[in-house]
């Protein structure tokens, strides 16, 4: 090293020594805990915030948009289309993800770069929410906080279930979840979906039972489903389906929901995320279904 350069280094080291020392001490205190986390999946990110561990996040995925401040973090893209170098550029020590991170080549490379990968199982009922919370807390090495949050959320969910049971009464309402509408075709939520999960928790009945997942529903199937209420995600702008468009659909118009013009809209992530806000969503939906 040339003398001028080494003098420069000496100056830099002197200036940053106190900072470096502080960082060193802090990191030796929490050496076991991953400090640079990339969180993938809206509900997982929400849980990290609910646990109060958001300072450890360095990046998030496209679906993580709650709470609002999370959008200040860099966006590494869509869960199934991770860019290996993009994720590596965040220099993470842990990737915390919902089920289904991909493509497999990217996951392999990230694991080869000795980055810890933690997959949080999905599910659409009370237990799934609690399992997610406990698992995230465990991975973040804050199991006590996780137990506390899980207990709190469990209590909320029990309260919500009580509200739902009271509101639904003897005649549970039939709910049709409409994911989107393209060229007059309705994409509806069938069995084994988050939509069905939240409808059930709120004391309703999914009007569509013939298929799994989200699929287009024929006009006759819509009439046969005979929903009392139509449930949609609240989305702004082009993506949203207006009441006008919806009831311009003759099949929808001839259902009980069409006759009474019953449409409910709710924030998509809150309603379908199955995270800390699920209890809130269930209470809201239960009241709305009962027409309060």
């Amino acid at each position, binding site marked *: 090293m040339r003398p001028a350069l080494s003098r420069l280094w000496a100056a830099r080291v002197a200036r940053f020594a106190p900072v470096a020392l502080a960082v060193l001490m802090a990191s030796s205190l929490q050496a076991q805990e991953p400090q640079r986390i990339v969180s993938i999946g809206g509900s997982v990110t929400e849980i990290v915030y609910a646990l109060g561990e958001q300072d450890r996040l360095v*990046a998030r995925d*496209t679906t993580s948009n709650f709470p609002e401040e999370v959008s200040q973090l*860099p*966006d*590494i*893209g*869509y869960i*199934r*289309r*991770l*860019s*290996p*170098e*993009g*994720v*590596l*550029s*965040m220099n993470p020590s842990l990737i915390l993800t919902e089920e*289904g991170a*991909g*493509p*497999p*080549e*990217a996951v*392999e*490379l990230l694991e*080869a*770069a*000795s980055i810890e990968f933690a997959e949080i199982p999905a599910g659409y009922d009370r237990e799934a929410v609690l399992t997610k919370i406990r698992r995230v807390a465990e991975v973040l090495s804050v199991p006590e906080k996780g137990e506390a949050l899980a207990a709190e959320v469990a209590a909320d969910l029990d309260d919500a279930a009580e509200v739902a049971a009271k509101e639904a009464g003897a005649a549970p309402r039939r709910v049709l979840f409409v994911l989107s509408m393209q060229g007059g075709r309705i994409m509806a939520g069938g069995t084994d*979906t988050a939509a069905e999960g939240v409808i059930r928790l709120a004391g309703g009945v999914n009007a569509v039972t013939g298929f*799994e*997942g*989200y*699929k287009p529903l024929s006009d006759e199937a819509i009439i046969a489903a005979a929903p009392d209420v139509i449930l949609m995600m609240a989305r702004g702008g082009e993506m949203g389906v207006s009441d006008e468009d919806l009831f311009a659909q003759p099949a929808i118009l001839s259902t009980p929901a069409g006759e009474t013009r019953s449409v409910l809209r709710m924030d998509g992530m809150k309603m379908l995320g199955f995270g800390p806000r699920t209890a809130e969503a269930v209470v809201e939906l239960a009241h709305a279904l009962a027409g309060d």
Partner: protein
Amino acid sequence: MVAIHPDAHAAGDRRKLARSTTWVLVALLLATAWASLAVGASGVSLPAAIGDLLAGRELEARTRIILWDIRLPRLLTGMMVGASLAVAGTVLQGLFRNPLADPGLVGVSAGAGLGAISAIVLGGLLPLGLSEVFGPALVPVMAFAGSWLSVSVLYLIATRGGRTSVATMLLGGIALAAMTAAFSGLLIYIADDQQLRDLTFWSLGSLAGSSWSRTLYAAPLMLTALVAAPALARGLNALALGESAAHHLGIPVQRLKTLAILVVAAAVGAATAISGGIGFVGIVVPHLLRLATGPEHRALLINSALLGASLLLIADVISRSIVAPSELPIGIITAVVGGPFFLWILLRRRANLEI
């Protein structure tokens, strides 16, 4: 060969121009290849890494993974895919004597697509042992099988008494593409939510899934096609005068067609399998070069491979840096940049374009 050109002097000039264009394109490819290795979200420095290597120092694990396991396979894949698509376009256009022929037109891409979609949607249904054997190679293998199958069926339809009718082949290709699309539609209907999103992203094209294993699976097919293509040049030049003229010039027309079809199936099948639907390269690249250096196929095929590779690398560098740390599908870039550019060239040269 000179006899093909009415003006021998002009043909000589063009040949010289084509040769100097080749050198320019080689330089362009080297520059884009360097950029593709040097640019990325992580800010790993290529010159520094090369310096370390030359000095005999070990690279840091992270640097090694980014350069060796992420950027290098991606560079090689991009080069091969770009070259394959451009060469396949050139061969098809020569074969059909129609500058609008495109791998999409004769159902090759649709066949490859059906293969890949089947692998994505039905892959989980395979008996356990089978999916273990293929693993991540299932999509590339199925896509090649699909493109090869659709070209073979097309060839059977269009060939009667040992002769292939180009008109029947074009129309048959459109019919076949429609049927293939119907099957793909059926598979898309039974796909679940996650598979649907995989399909959407796959159809937009990306080099993000490049890895050594996938590159090595697809490379033999693409390289064979690229090496074999220049051998078609003389035949394609003669074919430009019409089938009977080519026959009288001593070209084994039937064998030429068979070979050309195989080259296209291999190039497009492997390229589609590894990178999804990347449009416009197959049609823009040969066009640009034909406008610049004329229709002689040997130069056209070599230059197409070089320019196709460079353009895809440029598009890939843009796709991974424009929204870093996320990534834009590369098919969007090629379409957004390629479409208007192509139109501009067409309009500018409309006066002396002989299509």
